[in-house]
């Protein structure tokens, strides 16, 4: 089969932007393969999402409804996906490199006897053999690799904000309901509690003031908080970020983490305080419009990607800066 199937995802009752990005790239791949684009929506009540997906003009939207698909218990989702793939036999299967995609991708690939490439930033069809060319940053972003594997389905998870979201199509896709057989005994991992925390949406920040190992201890974030408040008088949405090491040390919660395994951001201004600039961190913030680095080590990586640099102890500079900002 030449169908390109994408796993759709819902967020607050409507299709997640990442799904629309997948629709965009999926449509191109389907054309290159000479096949159709199809979208798959799973859930306890997927009807609204399926109708919305249909308006983007895929050939078909597969809608899978089951009470056990409420929320996200990976084992039920995997069983459902296995059953759908057995029926639909997609040639290419794409998912977002999101929380769900990261969990489902490798496990589903294993069950289908396929090879997956994760976190792709580009996809194309090799005209010679029809296989998917999967482009992915490796070595923390120090190199870009193009992978290719035989077998079906051709599977990839796709990084967010890389492809343009699709615009609504002229023709509506056909909605096809698929029944799956699931029962509660299929889950070997039981959910005990789902807890919503107040998380920092770093990708919505205009300015990020971030701290790393160079702060020396947890108290260093108090100085950053003073700077955040001072900047908030002149800039909208100023948030606190951090490097991985600050989370490892337990100084701050992981929703503040910037980088490959944290949040990828591109604010107007990024202020890196005591962050040396491990490549995994740089990948997450290097698209910031202006980068200001404060560090005692003049040779550190962060200065190589910064627009403005201050080689000085943050304990001396930040309080003085807060004072000066108040005067402006």
């Amino acid at each position: 089969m030449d169908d390109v199937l994408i796993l759709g995802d819902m967020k607050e009752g409507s299709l997640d932007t990442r799904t629309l990005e997948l629709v965009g790239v999926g449509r191109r791949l389907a054309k290159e393969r000479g096949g159709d684009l199809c979208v798959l929506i799973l859930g306890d009540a997927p009807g609204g999402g399926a109708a919305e997906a249909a308006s983007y003009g895929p050939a078909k939207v597969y809608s899978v409804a089951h009470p056990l698909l409420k929320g996200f218990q990976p084992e039920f989702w995997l069983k459902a996906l296995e059953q759908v793939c057995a029926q639909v036999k997609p040639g290419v299967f794409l998912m977002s490199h999101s929380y769900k995609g990261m969990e489902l991708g490798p496990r589903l690939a294993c069950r289908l006897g396929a090879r997956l490439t994760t976190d792709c930033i580009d996809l194309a069809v090799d005209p010679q053999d029809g296989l998917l060319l999967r482009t992915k940053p490796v070595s923390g972003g120090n190199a870009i690799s193009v992978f290719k594997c035989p077998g079906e389905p051709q599977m990839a998870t796709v990084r967010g904000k890389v492809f343009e979201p699709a615009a609504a199509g002229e023709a509506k896709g056909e909605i096809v309901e698929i029944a799956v057989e699931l029962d509660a005994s299929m889950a070997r991992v039981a959910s005990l509690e789902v807890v919503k925390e107040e998380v920092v949406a770093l990708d919505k920040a205009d300015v990020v003031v971030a701290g790393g190992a160079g702060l020396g201890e947890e108290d260093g974030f108090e100085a950053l908080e003073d700077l955040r408040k001072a900047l908030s008088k002149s800039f909208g949405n100023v948030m606190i970020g951090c490097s991985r090491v600050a989370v490892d040390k337990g100084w701050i919660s992981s929703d503040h983490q910037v980088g490959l395994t944290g949040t990828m951001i591109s604010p107007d201004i990024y202020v890196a305080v005591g962050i040396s600039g491990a490549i995994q961190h740089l990948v997450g913030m290097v698209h910031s419009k202006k980068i200001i680095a404060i560090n005692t080590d003049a040779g550190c990586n962060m200065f190589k990607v910064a627009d403005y640099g201050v080689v000085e102890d943050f304990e001396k500079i930040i309080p003085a800066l807060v004072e000066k900002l108040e005067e402006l």
Partner: protein
Amino acid sequence: MKEMRIIVCAKQIPDPEAPLSDVRVDAANKEVIVDAPQVISPFDENALEAALRITEDLGGTITVLSLGKKVSDTVLRKALAAGADELILLQDDAFDKLDSYSVAQALADAIRKIGDYDLILTGRQAGDWDSGQVGLLLGEILGIPSVSLAREISVEDGSVVVKKSTPEGYERVKAALPALVTVSNEVGELRYISRTRMLKMLKGAGSIPSWGAQDLGTAPDALKKMSIVELSSPPDMRRDCQFLEGATPDEVAGKLAAVFKSLQ
């Protein structure tokens, strides 16, 4: 309750903290060359720390497995110095540049050879290829329950209870042992190891077991190499940094404040 037998899978990689200047792409041979010391992949260190805390509470043993073409026991002995009981190196030419599935397959063969285990811990992803697949594939191949992105792990009455990170907060889940858990950095960094302890472990301990594909019963033909069509350098990230200087911190702060003003 019986003592826990924990297996931690740890990968040796070039230090991901290496400066940009130490990294070079060899496009012809499709290799990333990093002129930096080898270290244990950071998330795998978090996994080891989680294992150490569990055995401190409940007793038990920790076996660390590391797979590659050439694994250095000098690098991996850090795991012993930190408190692991046993280190097994899985090394063979056949283990060079494997795809994620084949790595998981060889690890699964090694774990079957070890036989008795309660819990397998891996890092959520390795710091070189960043694929994030091996742990979950290993759970699938072994046919045991898997939980990913753990920020806290405890063992209670024959089950593992995991606080796993979600985009909105966390979910507490429970699975019967044996199970596999992939560990994220919120678990905390690997404990401090004194230089004396590290040196003692490097000099003192006996030879480290090393198993090849044949020892695992893994047919080399069953292992597939990563198929890389092309490897290239990323677009240059460098910018021309303007350093702000002054006689006093106050003067520098004044210049920095002016920069913010200009960006308003």
